């Protein structure tokens, strides 16, 4: 077995060392990266990917710590990719998201990986999407991606996650200004964290007002959840909303699938009906036998015969 095959096998069996190695190889864009991604790709698509974004200091890491704990209580396996910025000046990075997730680090069903942006823009790293695939293939039920402290236009996360949670906290300055453009548009769920502070209700009302301005007829109503990440207050409600959104997506997918199926059936039915009525007419006019004889005598091939008849009947097709 080659080194790459060994890593792939390890990832698929959920081996933590292999997961870690695979992500490093992908991050460094080493020659084996492509083969690893290709080999695990068929095993992806099972995990629900949640993106958590919002300004620095709003409590993303702490909240993720609590969300993971809640999912663990429900028996789900969880992966986390926490992204922090790389210095554009030195290329170095200080990755501090683990500090808020300490008690999770020895749970064998939780895998946390810190990732530097390596100057990729948009709030995540270039390797984030593939790291999520690794965790997905490794059997995680839920994968949470924490973006860098985002302002307005760091919306790359929509390409990676299915449910986007935008988190905000009262007292972070002009909060509504900060979220009105980019982040506002990608949120599936809003969280007002640090809800024990005064002005929390004001923040909720401001977001509600924004959402109403924005309200085109949409199938998914964006909920606003209040949390206190430090104590875990509101986290079960947040999970409930996330799960609701997951079921919503599932229903949408089912609906799409049902539509496709209905379309195929309808097309088939129409084909049948049209063919039957045309053939009935051919037979009535006696042309059917006439055409059959010509085909038997090889004077014409079946396709041309059909075309000739349809042209006569309906004009140029």
């Amino acid at each position, binding site marked *: 077995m080659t080194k790459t095959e060994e890593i792939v096998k390890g990832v698929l069996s959920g081996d933590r060392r292999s997961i*870690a190695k695979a992500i490093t190889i992908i991050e460094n864009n080493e020659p084996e990266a492509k083969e690893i991604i290709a080999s695990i790709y068929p095993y992806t698509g099972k995990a629900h990917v949640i993106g958590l974004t919002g300004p620095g200091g709003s409590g993303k890491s702490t909240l993720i710590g609590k969300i993971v704990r809640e999912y663990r209580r429900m028996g789900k396996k969880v992966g986390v990719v926490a992204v922090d910025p*790389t210095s554009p000046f*030195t290329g*170095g990075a200080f*990755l501090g998201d*683990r500090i808020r997730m*300490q008690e999770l680090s*020895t749970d064998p069903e939780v895998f946390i*990986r*810190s990732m530097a942006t390596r100057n990729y823009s948009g709030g995540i790293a270039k390797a984030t999407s593939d790291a999520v695939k690794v965790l997905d293939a490794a059997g995680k039920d839920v994968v949470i991606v924490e973006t860098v402290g985002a302002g307005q236009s760091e919306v790359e996360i929509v390409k990676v996650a299915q449910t986007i949670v935008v988190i905000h906290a009262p007292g972070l300055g002009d909060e509504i200004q900060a979220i009105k453009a980019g982040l506002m548009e990608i949120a599936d769920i809003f969280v007002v964290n640090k809800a024990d502070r005064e002005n929390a209700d004001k923040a909720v009302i401001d977001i509600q007002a924004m959402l109403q301005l924005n309200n085109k007829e949409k199938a998914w109503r964006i909920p606003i959840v209040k949390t206190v990440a430090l104590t875990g207050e509101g986290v079960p409600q947040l999970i409930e909303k996330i799960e609701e959104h997951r079921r919503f997506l599932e229903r949408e997918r089912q609906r799409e699938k049902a539509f496709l199926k209905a379309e195929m059936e309808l097309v088939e039915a129409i084909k049948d009906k049209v063919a039957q009525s045309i053939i009935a007419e051919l037979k009535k006019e006696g042309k059917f036998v006439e055409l059959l004889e010509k085909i038997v005598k090889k004077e014409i091939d079946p396709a041309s015969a059909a075309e000739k008849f349809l042209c006569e009947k309906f004009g140029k097709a």
Partner: protein
Amino acid sequence: MQKKIRVLIAKPGLDSHDRGAKVVARALRDAGMEVIYTGLRQTPEQIVEAALQEDVDVIGLSILSGAHKALFPRIMQLLKEKGLTDILVFAGGIIPEEDVPELKKIGIKEVFGPGTPTEKIIQCILDYCSKKSLKMCSN
């Protein structure tokens, strides 16, 4: 391909003096490394598991509580058990001179006491990593 040196800075034990750990973390960051800081009061199990998941090349242990003789051997043993023997481990904080030989014997590469220039730590890491990547190339 853009290989980066990844370093875990960890604080085992129960003291909460992390000024030194942060100074070192900051210096390594400015030297272009990716530094993962675990926060205070980590058990050996937490530190080793973090090193495994983060796939680091280097671990820096900072301790000022005096518990290094109990905690460091445990960390080194866990690293061995998990097959993470190619990680460079260095230490810093308040560690008496007479304890250093014993720590080096269990695999701690260097002990950097107070007043160590950060350049010295950076150089130690760079030397180790260039040797390691040479070794990786020759394999």
